Structures are given as structure tokens and as C-alpha cells.
């Protein structure tokens, strides 16, 4: 077996309560690494078109990669893959916490859960004894994710759902510790199987090709991260909430259901404010991560809990016009405990508020007013009253009540907290990302709107190229499996130190912006020596050379396979779009329209090697060895 892998897939059938270990396929691992890549390959091969995402035929795949279990910083993540009940296309979500480490210690690279249990069940997996026990979970059904984890065996690592998953909320997630695989409704799929929790333990160690080189280099990278202004300073002090004031200043902070990009009370929901008023301590949010981006907050009557991330601060804060950090923290806690994605939840709530504002929905909801929201969040998770409708997400709400032009989703997945009208590359990424309107499948905005060296977000230059490079990289990162935040370390501290008004900063910005797209993609595609830390880690662990070019190729392979999956499920170029508000309404003075997607999409397709209607060409699939 290739080093870095446990070499085993565990398949569990919930209906028959049988399980079997099978060897990991080395060729698939070489082509797709692991995590999201391997999981997508399995989903594509094991299912036919048109399956019901909430039916027993939709497998729920938990996948790790060769970096998991290695103690490399930020290598604590697993990916869940299945057909999404929210979008009808590819579903996947990555999660921190400790479950990935548990799987690897149990000697399991991939866990496939199939069919459906007759009554609530939980799994206890002992990798040392190669045993899987099917335990009755009736006593846990209905409990929150935090209490559930407290009640589960202490020596195991867990992945659980809350009431939202049990009640098939279409944006329910799966929780490990205080982290959530939030997007695309993977928790609803777990709930549809009546699977409350998976607990796993083992004592196996990861085998590496060159452990000494790995140890020495990892020590160096830890120090690099410690000294980095983003990973070692900003994120550590303020968490991801540090970005609120930046997006607000750049007019891309979603406000009032994306009616504006600027919120007057942004400072009051920012990471900086959190540090001054709400933070009670910092803890290493995920195992082996020196960045510690997680915040803790003290909630009255609850105690110390995980604080809100940037996306939550924006979608449950500014986008509802709520400038009350305590309220947002409270809602964040409830959403996590109930097991729901705060992005989709916040966006669906803001959509409902705008429906009410326009007289299209009769409900006691309004922008800027927190009254009733706490109760409504509970109602969503339990599918009660209006909550039952909100539980189906924005797209279905729009089908029911109208308001398509201000329904903020792509392919059914609610938009993240970067308004693409001030971030054109991010808009192309939203429109084309296979799982829908999400920011962590490329994070193009870092290079044009929020990072230390950004290109003009309103020019068309590079706006079709950056998403391709970033999406490919993100596919590879999510297959190792590493946290996407690692890419924020790619811009060295010397550049962060430059004054934005200095000639050096201006010269570098100019050079970046005027780099031909073909040169950018070509340079990233060179198969040479490993340069970045994650390339070196992969190389030291597996014994196979990984460079930027290798990862771009593997990432493109995964991305195209996802695309083929979506096409098979009936999605097409018509779904590669942005909400009409994003295309037609401007939030910038002097601009008469929104995002110029129609000018960028044809170029994106061509550079991807796709036809004019967004279908990967045969030559592209053959070059990338994508079997369909």
C-alpha cells in the first residue's frame, strides 16, 4: 500500500447490520489522492443517475486522505460526500474536529455507510479489533450535537447529527467536536439513514515514506505559521471574524439580504470586537492546528461555547441587519447544537425577511429585529410552522413564494459572505463551483478583495483564470485532507509588511494583475519539485513527488468528475449563474449593473477545456484520465 494510507475501506450496511473491510484502490488513490477526490469517484461509480438523495440508495461517504493522522498543521479534516438533497447535484462538506484522526487511527481511509436503519442507530467502530457495533440510538434521537457527544463513549472520536439532520432539514450538517461539515445537506442524508452518530477508535500509527524529513520540515512550517501575519497573528487574535471590517470597507459584506455591501454596525460584529467584549479564551479548535482560529464566547445560561466564524457573523449578523454580537453568538450556538449550516440558515432567514418586507410572506420577521429569530431557528430544525418551509432552503422558498430575483443561491446552495459584485473572480467561482454558491472551493476573493496583494476586483483581467487555478487547488487540498486556510499562508510575511501606498506594493499589484492568464495557469501547471508545504508533506508521506503541477492536474480531474456527476444528474450550463440581484443590481455608485458573468463564463469554459455549453470535451476528460 502507498504510505500515508491505512489501506482499508470500511463499508457498513445499516439495513442488514453487516460490515466489511475492503482494500483501498491504489490506482484511485494515485489519481484522486483521497478525501473529496476519492469520495467523489466512489459516489460516481456506485450510484446511477436520478437517485433520491434522501433515499437508502444514496451512500454516505466519510473520506480521509494521506495527510490525516500525520500531525501536520491543519491536517485534521475529513470530507463527507453524497448526493446533495439541497442541490440535487454533488454534495460534499469538509469538517475539522477529531473524527478524521479517529478514522485513521482505526486504520480506515474511507467509511461508506449504505442503506437505512429501521430505527435510530449509532455505530461504534473499533479499528484494532476490526469490529463494528450497531447500537440503538433511540435515547439520543432528538438530542443536540453537544449533548450527544457528551453521552457517547469517551475513548472514541465522533461524528454526529442534531435534530436538524434527524428532521431532514436540507442544510443540516454533521458535527465533530465543535466543528461542522455544514454545506449541501450532508446531515440530512445521515438523518435519512436514521444514523445518529459514528464513533471510532483505534491505535494505529501512520506510516510515512520519510518520517525524519517530515518531522524536520513540519517543525519549520509550524514556525513559519507562528510568524505569519495571517495564520500566526490575525487569525489567532481575532479569528476569521477579522475579515468583517475588511469586507465592509470593500463594500462586499452582505447586508439586508445582499441589498447592500456595507453595514454601519459592522465593527460591533467583528473579530476585533469579539476579542474586546466576548472572547473568554482561545483554544486549539482542531487537533494539530497551531492557528487556533476558533473563538470562545460566554453565553448566559449556557457557559463557554464556540463563538461565531466570519460567515456566521455576516449571514446571521449584517445580512439580517443585526449588530448584536451576543445574539449572533447565541444563534450560532443553537445552529451548531441543532446541527445546521449557518450560511444557508442565515441566507434563508434574510430571504424570508425580504419576502415579508415586500408583502409576499406574512410572518413576524423583519430586518434589524432579533425578536422571534431564536424560536424560529428551533422551528427550522424541528420543521415546525414557518420553520418547516425555511428548512427546505432559499431556492424552494422562492418556488413557493416567488422572489427568485432576490433568492441568494447558486444551484440551490445559499451564497457565502462575499458579495461577488465587488469580487468578480469570486462570482465566477460561485457560478461554476460544482456544489453551488460556496467560497471555500477556491477562495478567489483572497486574491482580489481581502488579501494583502489584490488585483482590481472590477476589471475583467484574470477573472476567468483565477477561479480555475483556485478551484483545482481547493479540490486537491480537500483530498489530502487539509484545511483550506493553509493557502492563506502562501503570501509571505514580507508582502504583508509592505505599506499599501508604497511603490513596492503598487509594483507587485501591477505585476500580478497584468500577468497573462495563460502564464499564470501555465506556471501553476509545471510539474517540478515540491515547493509549498503541502506538496512537501505529501511527498514525504507518500514517497511520490507532488508539485504545483501535479496538484493542479489532480484538482482539475476531481473538478471535472464532479462536473460530469452534475451533468448526469441533470444540472447544466443554465445552472452556472448568479442570483438575478447579483447580475442586475449594483451596490457600487457609478456602476449601472452587477456582476458581468456573461462576459467571463465563455472564457472560463474554454480555459477549462469545455464546450460552449459547459460540457467537458472528450479530449479534456482523456487528458485528465476522468473515466465516465
Amino acid at each position: 500500500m502507498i504510505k500515508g494510507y491505512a489501506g482499508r475501506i470500511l463499508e457498513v450496511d445499516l439495513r442488514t447490520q453487516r460490515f466489511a473491510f475492503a482494500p483501498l484502490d491504489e490506482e484511485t488513490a494515485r489519481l484522486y489522492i483521497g478525501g473529496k477526490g476519492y469520495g467523489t469517484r466512489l459516489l460516481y461509480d456506485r450510484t446511477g443517475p436520478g437517485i433520491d438523495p434522501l433515499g437508502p440508495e444514496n451512500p454516505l461517504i466519510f473520506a480521509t486522505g494521506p495527510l490525516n493522522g500525520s500531525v501536520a498543521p491543519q491536517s485534521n479534516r475529513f470530507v463527507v460526500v453524497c448526493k446533495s438533497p439541497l442541490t440535487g447535484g454533488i454534495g460534499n462538506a469538509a469538517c475539522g474536529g477529531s473524527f478524521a484522526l479517529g478514522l485513521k487511527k482505526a486504520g480506515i481511509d474511507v467509511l461508506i455507510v449504505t442503506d437505512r436503519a429501521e430505527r435510530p442507530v449509532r455505530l461504534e467502530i473499533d479499528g484494532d479489533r476490526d469490529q463494528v457495533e450497531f447500537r440503538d440510538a433511540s435515547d439520543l434521537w432528538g438530542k443536540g450535537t453537544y449533548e450527544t457527544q457528551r453521552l457517547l463513549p469517551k475513548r472514541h472520536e465522533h461524528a454526529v447529527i442534531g435534530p436538524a439532520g434527524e428532521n431532514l432539514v436540507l442544510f443540516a450538517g454533521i458535527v465533530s467536536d465543535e466543528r461542522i461539515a455544514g454545506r449541501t445537506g450532508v446531515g440530512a442524508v445521515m438523518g435519512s439513514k436514521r444514523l445518529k452518530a459514528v464513533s471510532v477508535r483505534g491505535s494505529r500509527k501512520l506510516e510515512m515514506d520519510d518520517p525524519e524529513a517530515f518531522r524536520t520540515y513540519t517543525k519549520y512550517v509550524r514556525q513559519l505559521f507562528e510568524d505569519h501575519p495571517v495564520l500566526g497573528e490575525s487569525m489567532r487574535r481575532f479569528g476569521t471574524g477579522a475579515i468583517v471590517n475588511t469586507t465592509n470597507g470593500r463594500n462586499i459584506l452582505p447586508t439586508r439580504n445582499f441589498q447592500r455591501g456595507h453595514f454601519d454596525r459592522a465593527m460591533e460584529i467583528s473579530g476585533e470586537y469579539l476579542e474586546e467584549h466576548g472572547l473568554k479564551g482561545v483554544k486549539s479548535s482542531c487537533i494539530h492546528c497551531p492557528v487556533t482560529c476558533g473563538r470562545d464566547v460566554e453565553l448566559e445560561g449556557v457557559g463557554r461555547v464556540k463563538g461565531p466564524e466570519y460567515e456566521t457573523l455576516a449571514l446571521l449578523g449584517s445580512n439580517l441587519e443585526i449588530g448584536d454580537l451576543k445574539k449572533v453568538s447565541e444563534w450560532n450556538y443553537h445552529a451548531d447544537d441543532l446541527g445546521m449550516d449557518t450560511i444557508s440558515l442565515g441566507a434563508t432567514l434574510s430571504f424570508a425577511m425580504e419576502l415579508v418586507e415586500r408583502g409576499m410572506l406574512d410572518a413576524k420577521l423583519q430586518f434589524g429585529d432579533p425578536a422571534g429569530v431564536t424560536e424560529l431557528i428551533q422551528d427550522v430544525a424541528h420543521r415546525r410552522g414557518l420553520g418547516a418551509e425555511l428548512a427546505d432552503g432559499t431556492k424552494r422558498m422562492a418556488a413557493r413564494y416567488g422572489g427568485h430575483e432576490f433568492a441568494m443561491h447558486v444551484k440551490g446552495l445559499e451564497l457565502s459572505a462575499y458579495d461577488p459584485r465587488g469580487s468578480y473572480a469570486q462570482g465566477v467561482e460561485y457560478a461554476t463551483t460544482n456544489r453551488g454558491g460556496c467560497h471555500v472551493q477556491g477562495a478567489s476573493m483572497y486574491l482580489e478583495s481581502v488579501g494583502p496583494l489584490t488585483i482590481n476586483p472590477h476589471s475583467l483581467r484574470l477573472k476567468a483564470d483565477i477561479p480555475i487555478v483556485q478551484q483545482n487547488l481547493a479540490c486537491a487540498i480537500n483530498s489530502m485532507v487539509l484545511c483550506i486556510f493553509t493557502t492563506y499562508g502562501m503570501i509571505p510575511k514580507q508582502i504583508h509588511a509592505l505599506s499599501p501606498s508604497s511603490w513596492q506594493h503598487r509594483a507587485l499589484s501591477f505585476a500580478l494583475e497584468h500577468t497573462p492568464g495563460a502564464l499564470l495557469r501555465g506556471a501553476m501547471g509545471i510539474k517540478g519539485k515540491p515547493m509549498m508545504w503541502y506538496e512537501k508533506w505529501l511527498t514525504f508521506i507518500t514517497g511520490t513527488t507532488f508539485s504545483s503541477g501535479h496538484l493542479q492536474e489532480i484538482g482539475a480531474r476531481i473538478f471535472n468528475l464532479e462536473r460530469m456527476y452534475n451533468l448526469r444528474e441533470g444540472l447544466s450550463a443554465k445552472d452556472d449563474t448568479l442570483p438575478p440581484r447579483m447580475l442586475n443590481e449594483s451596490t457600487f455608485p457609478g456602476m449601472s449593473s452587477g456582476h458581468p458573468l456573461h462576459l467571463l463564463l465563455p472564457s472560463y469554459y474554454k480555459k477549462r477545456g469545455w464546450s460552449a455549453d459547459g460540457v467537458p470535451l472528450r479530449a479534456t476528460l482523456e487528458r485528465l484520465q476522468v473515466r465516465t
Partner: protein
Amino acid sequence: MPVTVQLSYEMRKALGVSRVEIEGARTVADVVRITRERFGPAGERFDELTRRAAVAVNGILASYRRGMKTPVANGDVVAFVKAAAGG
């Protein structure tokens, strides 16, 4: 309507306010000058911190337009922004 100046976190820590409103500015350079004068003796600190932040007029970086000569009008929001990362 005055021009609203949104200060960075470091400026807020140093100067005690997160935003000020000013009158009479026609360019970004005017905004910096008038805001500095507003803070009196602490204006030097403000000046120093402007070098660590980019400046955006209604969300668009001045560096993409005419730099310090970028025009501003009443009702505009001029923000001092720092690079950040999140997700």
C-alpha cells in the same frame, strides 16, 4: 451630507472612535488631512496608521482610481482597510 470616514481597528484602538464624519473634503488626500486635524495631537498617530492600511472610497480602493487624488463627494464612505483572511 458629510463624508463618513471608517477607521481601521488599529486606528480605533489608538483614537477611541470607529468612524468620524467630516465636511469639505474633495479628494482622498483631503480626507486624510481633515481627519488628521480632527484628532489634534493624536493626528500624528492617525497619519502613521494610514500607511498600514489601504483606503477605499465606497468600497473601491483608491489605488485602482487616482490614488490620493481620487475624488470624494458628500455621502461617500471612505474606509481604511487592512488585509485579512477568513472563511
